[in-house]
């Protein structure tokens, strides 16, 4: 390995390692403080005040915003729906993800092409996929209903966005389409580290494919799966755009989650304080989830 020629040591001004270290770290510290720490702190502060968009006044109201939010039946409905949406999405993503990973783990010709296409859904802007989804799932003219008709699976058009159950289904489907690739890639990476001899030994012992999967693959996948599941759960729970851009939380409020609820509080009800309070509740739930995740990787590293 040819290292580039290094010039002779110069005289004069030279920073010590420690100084360079601090210098390099400063921009990050400043930016992180300004754009991450501070806004979150402000959001927490805002949760204890009322604020209207019409005046700069900020009035302290103690726990009123929290009382308002926690006393609002729509909040609880949103929470319940968020749980349904998160659990269904994550479950589907995990099951389908593992299946796809197994599929892509095969050593066949051209497998890399297929693997390459995998991240495509991730990179599509949510706006785009929401619009395309609306077009595909349009009850009268969309290709989805047309195909279901053609296959004889339905007799009448499904009103994907006017019925609460179907709206939730379409939103979950979008989430699954967009984010299963993550699960696949993580699981695939792990699969590729499992030693092949384990399988060969099991095959010699007469184990079936399912037994090989259950006894060798699955235990090896346990840790990566738990990490992935926790991550996906946290992200899915807090997602705003996937739901809002597709259904606006409708019909009615049947596809609200906490993020959409917070947005509506701010923009429709003009209660920035209540929105911030919802945000604080989301943060609290988030920290609970992350603590769980950290405990898991702690265990993983052992």
């Amino acid at each position, binding site marked *: 390995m040819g290292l580039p020629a290094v010039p002779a040591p110069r005289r004069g001004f030279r920073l010590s390692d420690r100084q360079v270290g601090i210098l390099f770290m400063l921009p*990050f510290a400043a930016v992180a403080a300004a754009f991450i720490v501070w806004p979150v702190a402000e959001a927490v502060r*805002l949760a204890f005040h009322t604020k209207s968009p019409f005046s700069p006044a900020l009035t302290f109201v103690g726990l009123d915003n929290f009382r308002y939010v926690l006393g609002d039946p729509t909040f609880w409905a949103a929470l319940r729906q968020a749980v349904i949406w998160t659990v269904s999405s994550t479950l589907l993503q995990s099951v389908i993800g593992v299946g796809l990973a197994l599929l892509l783990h095969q050593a066949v010709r051209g497998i890399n092409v297929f693997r390459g296409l995998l*991240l495509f859904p991730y990179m599509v802007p949510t706006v785009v996929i929401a619009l395309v989804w609306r077009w595909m799932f349009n009850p009268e003219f969309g290709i989805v209903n*047309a195909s279901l008709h053609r296959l004889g699976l339905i007799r009448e058009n499904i009103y994907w966005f006017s019925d609460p159950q179907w709206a939730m289904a379409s939103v979950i489907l979008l989430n699954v389409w967009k984010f299963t690739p993550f699960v696949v890639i993580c699981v695939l990476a792990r699969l590729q580290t499992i030693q092949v001899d384990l399988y060969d030994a099991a095959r010699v012992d007469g184990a079936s494919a399912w037994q090989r999967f259950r006894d060798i693959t699955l235990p090896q996948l346990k840790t990566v799966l738990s990490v992935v599941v926790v991550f996906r759960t946290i992200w899915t729970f807090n997602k705003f755009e996937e739901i809002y851009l597709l259904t606006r939380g409708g019909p009615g409020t049947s596809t609200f989650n906490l993020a959409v609820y917070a947005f509506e509080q701010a923009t429709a009800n003009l209660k920035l304080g209540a929105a911030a309070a919802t945000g604080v509740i989301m943060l609290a739930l*988030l920290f609970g989830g992350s603590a769980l995740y950290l405990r898991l990787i702690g265990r993983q590293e052992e």
Partner: protein
Amino acid sequence: MRYQTRQRLRLAALYAALALVTVVTCFPLAWALVSSVRPNDEMLRLPPTLVPERVTAEHYVALLTGRGMYFEAAGGYRPKTSPSQHFLSWFFNSVVVSLGTTVISVGVSTLAAYSFTRFSFFGQRFISYFSLMGYMVPSIIFVFPLFLVMVPLGLTDRLPSLVLGYISITLPFCMWLMWAFFRGIPIEVEEAGLIDGASRFQVFWQIVLPLALPGIIATSIFSFIVSWNDYLIARIFMNSISQLPLTVGVMHFFEGVHVDWGLMMAAAVLMTLPLSVLFMLVQRYLIVGFGAGAVKG
């Protein structure tokens, strides 16, 4: 013999499954593409056909020249002052903002990650947890406080406000990624240079950075994608129609107009095109970045 046919069948089934997965993955965008070149009279035909009879560029032309973008009335006086075409400005805004954010986030993260992995600091673990936290905090929490700050600073409705806003959603995972990458670069490489008398700067600039380049590229791509795709922050920060990035602009015109699916699908295609190109070119890097833990979603 039996084994061979079974193997062949298995292979065929495998390819079939792979093909199905590919279709499902790519179908939405492919359908958008097909719909975007379908003429209007075919668009609302029942039942929908997979392949259009005629192919037309009218939607793209309309999108790029502004013709027929807003409601046109039959008969009557047509004003010469119509809301003008903004699609190209939106495109430009998205590019500028995504680049700006990427430069800042990646630049800052690279420096900091080098620092964290090379020098022992208080709170090393703290940094990694912090990045992780920031990584997962949803933007709905940042948006309104940041907005309330932008207002007195007079920054709202200007592109720099978006760049600043996007930093809050890109910085944590950029830090996380660059940290992971730098951890993977062995220290011995630099030590050789240091022993020879080079300064830290020189070692960083001439030795470490080139090695970190794949990581930097991967992180930049993720940062660009996340900035390009954001809707919420732009929605709240920007007011004038010409200042919107693509995401908000395209959603905006979805709502005031009679639903013109051809136009909308054309917009969808054009919006995804740059990212698709980027994706094709640097797919490799994406998987690499993935491996380092970029499960941002």
